[in-house]
C-alpha cells in the first residue's frame, strides 16, 4: 500500500459518495454539490494517474496535471451556470424540488 494507491482509493470512495448524494438528496443545490463531489473524485483519480507517471525529476506527469487544471476551471463555470439556473427558477416561483427524487417518501 503506497500513498498513491491510498489517494486512488480515496478518489473511488468520493465518486461513490457523490453518486449516492446525487440520487438521494432531494434539494437541487445538494445535487449540484454532489455532482461536484463526483467531479473532484474524477480529478483526483486523474491526479493519482499523473503521480504514477513521475519520471526524470518531475513529481508527476505534467500532461494530466495540466488537463486537471483546465477541468477544475471548466467544472467551476458549469457549477456557476447550474446555480444561476436554480436561482432564476426560484425567483420565477418554480418548483423547489425534483418530483421523482422524493417519490414515495413518507
Amino acid at each position, binding site marked *: 500500500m503506497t500513498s498513491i494507491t491510498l489517494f486512488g482509493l480515496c478518489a473511488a470512495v468520493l465518486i461513490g*459518495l457523490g*453518486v449516492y448524494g446525487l440520487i438521494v438528496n432531494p434539494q437541487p443545490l445538494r445535487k449540484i454539490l454532489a455532482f461536484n463531489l463526483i467531479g473532484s473524485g474524477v480529478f483526483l483519480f486523474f491526479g493519482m494517474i499523473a503521480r504514477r507517471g513521475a519520471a526524470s525529476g518531475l513529481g508527476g506527469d505534467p500532461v494530466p*496535471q495540466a488537463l486537471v487544471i483546465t477541468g*477544475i476551471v471548466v467544472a467551476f463555470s458549469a457549477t456557476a451556470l447550474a446555480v444561476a439556473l436554480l436561482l432564476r427558477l426560484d*425567483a420565477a416561483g418554480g418548483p423547489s424540488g425534483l418530483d421523482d427524487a422524493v417519490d414515495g417518501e413518507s
Partner: protein
Amino acid sequence: MMAGLVLDGLLALLVLAVAAWTIGVCQTFAATVGFTVYGLLLAVVWMRLAAPDAALTEAAIGALTGVLLLRAAIQLAPSEAGLNRLRPALKLRLLAGTLAFAITATLAAVVFHLPEPAPTLVPQVTAQQASTGLGNAVTAVLLAFRAIDTLLEAVVLIFALVAVWSLAPDAAWGGIPGAQIKGGSGDVRAYLSRLLPPVGIVIAFYIFWVGADFPGGKFQAGTLLAAMGLLATMAGLIQPPPVASRGLRWALVLGTLVFLALGLAGMPLAGAFLAYPEGWAKPLILLIEAASMLSIGVTLGLLVIGYPAGQAEQ
C-alpha cells in the same frame, strides 16, 4: 516513508469524512460550508500528489465555489425549508447505495490493476520543453503542447457567462449584474476589502509572473484577481459595470482574441496553428498569459456575481 503514509492516510480519512458529512447533513447551508472546507483539504491532497499547480487552482477555485454555493444556499433557504425535512424512501436509498458501492468497488479494483510500468509523457515533455523557454512543465503543456485545450477552455468560460447573463429577466437586461449591495464604510467587510486587495493583486501578478518557471500561472492569478474584485463588490465599495458595457465585453474576450490572433499568426510564421516562431515562444506565451489572466479574472468574478436581476427581484 512510513510517517508520510500515516499522514496521507489521516488526510484521506479527513477528506472522506468531510465529503460524507457534506452529503449526509440535514441543512443545505451546513453542506455548503462543508464543501468549502472540502475544497481546501483537496488542495492539500494535490500537494501530496506532487501537483502544486493543481493545488493552487483547487484552493483558489474552491474558495470561489464556496462563495457561490453559500450565497445560493442562503437565497434558496426559504424554498428549500420543506425539502430539508423530507427523507427519501428506504428503497431508493438502498438502490442508490448499491449503485454507489458498485462504482466505488469497480474503481478500487482498477486502482490495483493499473498497467506497470505506468505510462508517462514526461520524456516527451522534457525533450521539447527547452524549445518553449519555460521552466514549468505544466505551463509548457497548457500554453504550448496542448494550447488548443486552453484556448477552448477560455471560450467555454465566456459561453458559460453568456448563458448565465441570458437568464436575466427582460426588464433587467443590460443592467448591473447581481444584487445591489449597500456598503457600510464602517463594517468589517469594508475594512477587509480595503486591506486585502492591494496585497492580493500583488500576489496575483507574482503568481502569474513566476508561473513560467515555478508553480503558478494565469488561472490561479486570474482567480485571485476575481476574489479581490468580489471582496470589494460584496462590501459595496465597487459596483460591477452593466453587462451592456462595451469596455466590459472587450475585457472578457481580450485573452481569447490575443490567443487566437497569435495562434493564427503561427500559421504563416511557424507553419502551424498555435505554433510559436523559433525563439519567440516565451515572450508570446507571457503575452497570452497576461491577457488571459485579466479576462479569466473578470469572467470568473462575474460568474459568481450572476445575472442582472434588476430591482424587482432582490
